[in-house]
């Protein structure tokens, strides 16, 4: 029951991020989604009573709930980023597209990869939805910072699949992936600074020096 509600929360947050019109709402959505993910892995760790899973849970909290959102907020403040997200698709269409993507994910998990177990099935469906919604955010949001958040939503989806479907990846791989996410965000943040300095904006659709 609790697990089901948490899974639902992850999906709702993905939709909330599609509906978000402002950068701060987007960052908040990501923080909340990561927090739901943290609760889920905490329950899994508690059930299996495994130290390794507890460590993964702690790292998840530190990296995705605290460090990454704080860092992104700081970057946004430092470059005085416009709150407007530069939607290339209006919110209604975005929302319909997100619903359609979730439905496709539902069909995919039901028909193509049929996995035994109700929890595993819905977890895979929600993780695939989150991954596709993340991709959608990256394609349709034209601010560099919003693209970073799209990527992070994708990674949240993947993490959900790893944690719930396959019972967690081998420990060292999980740790390496967290480290990697942190590094990606920091490096992308550096590039946001560079773009902002050179172009005096962070609108990705206006990066058009290279053609052909």
């Amino acid at each position, binding site marked *: 029951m609790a697990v089901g509600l948490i899974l639902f929360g992850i999906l709702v947050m993905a939709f909330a991020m599609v509906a978000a019109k402002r950068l701060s709402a987007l960052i908040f959505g990501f923080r909340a989604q990561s927090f739901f993910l943290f609760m889920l892995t905490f329950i899994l760790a508690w059930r299996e009573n495994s130290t390794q899973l507890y460590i993964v849970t702690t790292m998840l909290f530190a990296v995705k709930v605290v460090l990454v959102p704080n860092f992104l907020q700081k970057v946004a403040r430092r470059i005085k980023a416009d709150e407007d997200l530069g939607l290339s698709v209006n919110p209604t269409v975005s929302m319909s597209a997100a619903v359609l993507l979730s439905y496709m994910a539902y069909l995919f998990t039901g028909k193509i990869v049929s996995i035994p177990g109700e929890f595993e099935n819905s977890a895979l469906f929600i993780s695939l939805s989150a991954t596709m919604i993340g991709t959608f955010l990256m394609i349709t949001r034209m601010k560099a910072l919003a693209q970073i958040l799209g990527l992070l939503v994708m990674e949240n989806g*993947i993490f959900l699949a790893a944690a719930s479907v396959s019972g967690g*990846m081998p420990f060292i791989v999980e740790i390496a992936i967290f480290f990697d996410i942190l590094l990606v965000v920091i*490096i992308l943040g550096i590039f946001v600074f560079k773009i902002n300095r050179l172009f005096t904006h962070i609108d*990705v659709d206006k990066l058009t*020096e290279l053609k052909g």
Partner: protein
Amino acid sequence: MQIFAILLIPLALSGIAVLPGKTRSFGVFNAAGHFINAVLAVWLSLDLLRTREAAAYLGFFYADLLSAFFILTISVINFIAALYSIGYISSDVRDSTMSERKAKAYYALFNLFTLTMLSVPVVSNLGMVWVAIEMTTLVSAFLVGFYNRKESIEAAWKYIIICSVGITLALFGTILFYYTASRDGGVSSLNWTDMAAAAGDLNPSILKVAFLFIVVGYGTKAGFVPMHTWLPDAHSQALAPISALLSGVLLPTAVYAIIRFATVINICIGTSYTGNLFMFFGLMSLGISAGLVLVQRDIKRLLAYSSVENIGIISIGLGFGGTFAIAGALFHVFNHAAAKSLMFFAAGRAVKKYNSHSIRDIRGMISAMPFAGTMLIVGAFALTGMPPFSAFFSEIMIIISGFTGGFLFQSSLLLFFMAVVFCAMIHNISRSVFGEKPSGMAAEGEPLSGKLAFGILMLIICTAGIVAPGFFKELLTAASEIIRGA
């Protein structure tokens, strides 16, 4: 034990690079370090060929003959790029395009980049392979955006974003792989050696879906059409030695990751599923890039599209299956890396001298810079597979096995597109090489380190097809046996 040394040398060099000292003398030291690495790679191959057993350490590091082949290719090209960097960076420092500090940063990043590339083939864990490939993107993005110009930052941003999305999809595929391995095969690690041992028990339909994610995900990094959109930007904006590394060895490294997954599937359900996907993406990359090579007006983008084309040829060779075809594909990885580095080095010299990327502006290279001009035109012939250059032999290996394997349609398309690329490449490159040089431009020679780098590459592409050392042939055959799952 050689693989530890191979990893430690670039790590140490990247640390030494930031110490105070003259960049030029560090460049020489750097090249020497990478020369030792190349020698170690040869030694490793010889060792593994003698024992015929994979070297595994700590359940984490692992090198079989397929890894050895990739390590060898990567470290040879690393060495040549390090050699070429000496002259290239010194001249940038001299005309103050680059500060001394920046040059030090270049060498540090160069070594980190080579370290991440070398760590891909030496780990046995598919999750760590994923991490290593992601690291190559992160480090090389700084090298793509190195000059901090508008175009280079734009290219770096696209590169890092598109490749990160791709690699995230690949992670999803890896998780599906792990799911069926742990549920159906009873394997609790991500080691492909364990997965291959349990391959018979895995769930074929999940494996097939997983492999689609893997091909699309790592294919983004390998430059398969239609996920190649970052590639021409990144390759044209990077520094010339880095362009050579990106194109010659980084793309095949991503193909290596796909191969490791394909091997497990081949054991489980036979080679036709992976083979068809390799052929599909290969032909698509080849066809689209052939058209783009034809209309390209920017010399470095031309070479970048030619990389997409060559990845297509390699992928088709892997798709044909059979020891001979796969050996041909691996041989082509090596030949393409050598010929493409030669051309990127020569094009890099031209871009610097003419201060333009446009083929229209770069004219009369043969009189303005006789050495680099000659290399550029010879490289064009070598790259497009003219005899007696080595790429001819690898391409003919692939084509022969295509026709004898019954892939008549695919092989005919392959031949047709290769002919198109040949005409387009020679047409475009000869316009730059021949003709009148701009008035008032003084002829310029090549620095010694550049001459050496060109000379070694020339030696490789002229002889590799005809008098390749015996161990190299054995290495190719053994590696292709591993891919087939034999």
